[in-house]
């Protein structure tokens, strides 16, 4: 009798084990049995404005397409983790979504890796496509010239300054700096009045923020480049690179920046935007167009009076050389993975999401010219000013090696910020790092 129970027990155990193994396995498509199709979309969460926009489009799309259900999946992660999670999902046709929210920084490498589906033909036949800014289209173009997504937003960087603080120091309003020296002398003038005269991201902890908000806008303002498109080489030594590092070093060695006890920590950005700026303790901040989003009613640090205190000026080029100003743009797109189950439907969905009537992504800068002309759009404070920055904007050379190059830039920026290295030493270190990481044959000096 006992033996019998034992045998039964083992049998149950084995069948349970076998069952659980099969359960782990094939789950080829998450479509329901009655012929319904499920279209899965993933995005980097939390992003309430994106979610509510997508829910609206989902409703319209489901009404138009019988038997199709759109599933919007939030991928809870920060900017650092989202690309990894997204890539791991796209790698397998078992887990791949049908639509991904894609940072244009990753779009080129992801397309090169074969994760994304080219949709050039679909877009060229689409009458709305002409309405997208040419410069923004560059962000969704792969190295092979094919289009890999539809842009949903773009962004710019500029100098956010406190009118009251600058005016009290005798600076004429509106402030219109024409050279780097103008910026530095304004910071010098308010040095004793505020805790942070001039905020720039310049630590490793801010990651890409340091490269994109600070280093590249400055570098492009010197006339130098980071990548030589003709020779296909990374520029590891140039006068502009050195000038940019010298600028950062000048800010911190003259006490024009934030206190070094927190300037290079991961919390610095939030401290500036949500604490010090509303307390009117920051004179000038070189930062992105999303900055005031923090101070809106539903932001992290509501500050209803911010429009009275804060204004925006474009970052001038080093000596005021053509085109006078400099900025860098990135942005997000919606793309279709090559492992998607329903590619045609996915393209239909992202087209519907980005029509003139539907493309409403919070206070993000629009990639569509016809939306930029709408009154409703221009009512947002400084939106027209920021959109005008797109005329002189630059895009990052987001080739496969870019994340490593960017990491090395952050090292160099932090080294001159903390005074661990002189600008010359930091550039030498950058050169060595890049030569080691991408191979000396892929680099050049200018």
């Amino acid at each position, binding site marked *: 009798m006992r033996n019998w129970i034992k045998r039964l027990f083992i049998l149950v155990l084995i069948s349970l084990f076998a069952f659980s193994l099969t359960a782990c396995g094939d789950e080829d498509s998450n479509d329901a049995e009655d012929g319904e199709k499920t279209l899965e979309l993933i995005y980097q969460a939390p992003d309430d404005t994106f979610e509510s926009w997508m829910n609206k489009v989902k409703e319209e799309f489901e009404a138009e397409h019988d038997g199709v259900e759109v599933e919007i999946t939030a991928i809870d992660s920060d900017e650092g983790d989202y*690309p990894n999670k997204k890539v791991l999902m796209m790698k397998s046709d078992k887990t791949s979504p049908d639509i991904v929210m894609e940072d244009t920084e990753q779009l080129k490498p992801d397309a090169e890796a074969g994760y994304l589906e080219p949709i050039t033909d679909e877009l060229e036949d689409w009458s709305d496509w002409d309405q997208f800014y040419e410069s923004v289209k560059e962000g969704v173009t792969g190295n092979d010239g094919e289009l890999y997504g539809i842009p949903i937003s773009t962004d710019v960087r500029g100098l956010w300054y406190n009118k009251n603080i600058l005016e009290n120091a005798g600076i004429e309003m509106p402030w219109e700096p024409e050279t780097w020296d103008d910026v530095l002398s304004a910071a010098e003038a308010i040095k004793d009045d505020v805790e942070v005269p001039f905020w720039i991201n310049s630590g490793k902890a801010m990651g890409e923020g340091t490269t994109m908000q600070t280093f590249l806008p400055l570098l492009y303002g010197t006339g130098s480049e980071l990548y030589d498109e003709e020779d296909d080489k990374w520029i590891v030594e140039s006068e502009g690179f050195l000038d940019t590092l010298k600028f950062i070093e000048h800010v911190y060695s003259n006490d024009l920046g934030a206190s070094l*006890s927190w300037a290079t920590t991961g919390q610095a950005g939030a401290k500036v935007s949500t604490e010090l700026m509303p307390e009117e303790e920051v004179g000038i901040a070189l930062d992105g167009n999303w900055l005031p989003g923090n101070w809106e009613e539903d932001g992290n640090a509501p500050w209803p009076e911010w429009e009275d205190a804060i204004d925006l000026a474009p970052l001038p080029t080093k000596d005021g050389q053509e085109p006078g100003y400099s900025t860098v743009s990135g942005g997000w797109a919606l793309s279709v993975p090559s492992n998607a189950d329903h590619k045609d439907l996915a393209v239909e969905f992202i087209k519907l999401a980005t029509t003139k009537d539907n493309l409403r992504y919070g206070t993000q800068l629009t990639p569509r010219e016809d939306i930029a002309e709408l009154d409703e759009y221009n009512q947002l404070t400084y939106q027209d000013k920021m959109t005008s920055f797109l005329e002189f904007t630059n895009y990052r050379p987001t080739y496969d090696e870019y994340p490593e190059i960017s990491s090395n830039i952050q090292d160099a920026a932090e080294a001159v910020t903390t005074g661990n290295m002189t600008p010359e030493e930091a550039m030498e270190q950058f050169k060595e790092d890049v030569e080691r990481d991408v191979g000396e044959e892929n680099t050049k000096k200018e």
Partner: protein
Amino acid sequence: MAQRRALRNNPYIKTLIFGSPAIILMLLFILGPIIMTILFSFTDIALTGAAAKEFEFVGFENFSRMFKDPSFKTSVINTIIFLVCSALIGQQVVGFLIAYLMKGKARPFRSLIGLLVLAGWITPEIVVAFVWFAFLSDDGTLNTILEFVGMEPVAWLLNFPMVSVVFVNIWHGAAFCMLMYQAALDDIPQEIEEAAKIDGANAWHRLWRITLPMIKGSAVTNMVLVTLQTLGVFTLIFALTGGGPGNKSTTLPLFMYDEAFVNYQLGYGTAISLVILLLGILLSLLYIRFLKTDD
């Protein structure tokens, strides 16, 4: 027929047959990944970009790049500091002291202290990190106390990142050593110590001549376990300092994560993980060797 019976009675064949499910699973899920790691560490495989689609064997390029990389040197030094200070010295000494001092004390006292020390150990690493972040941060508990007694607050995680993570790891891991040493100390026969006492040996002599030599075996096992555990610590440092400021508290696991998942260089990251693996094996062999020659 006889041959078949002989085969059936061969204990090795039997073991092999009945052990095969476990052996196959082990080969598949333990040896397989290790071999893959070794293979991938010689490639330029990446998470995205052209090298994600078609990777190439690049020989020893990842390793030569690693040894030229100043960040690698910093991480190795940090790993060794972290290992020696927090695991080999900190956890061992604190764990042993607690176990030794508690020996023969009243039961309620032992249970209470044991429970308190264990609380640090059973707390998940990520929770430990957040608790200590709250304690050590700029306006955290420690600085509030310092200010209360009239001292200047200190930015602990910023100015003393290595000291902070070492200290927190000692706090977190000492309980494991305590448990190991408690068991070892309990195994020492009472009679030996009593005999030594009668012979006139003082407490110091008893510790040095009797207790320590008798628990040497457990100590080495403990060292091996703690070393391997500490080499892999990631969560604690990642959540406390993120390896920063700069790379002042970047250990090898954090460096590997940076290269593999921030810079997307899976091949290079895998090569770094191989170095961690080799370091672990090397240290373990060293301890075991040390135990053998002394016997």
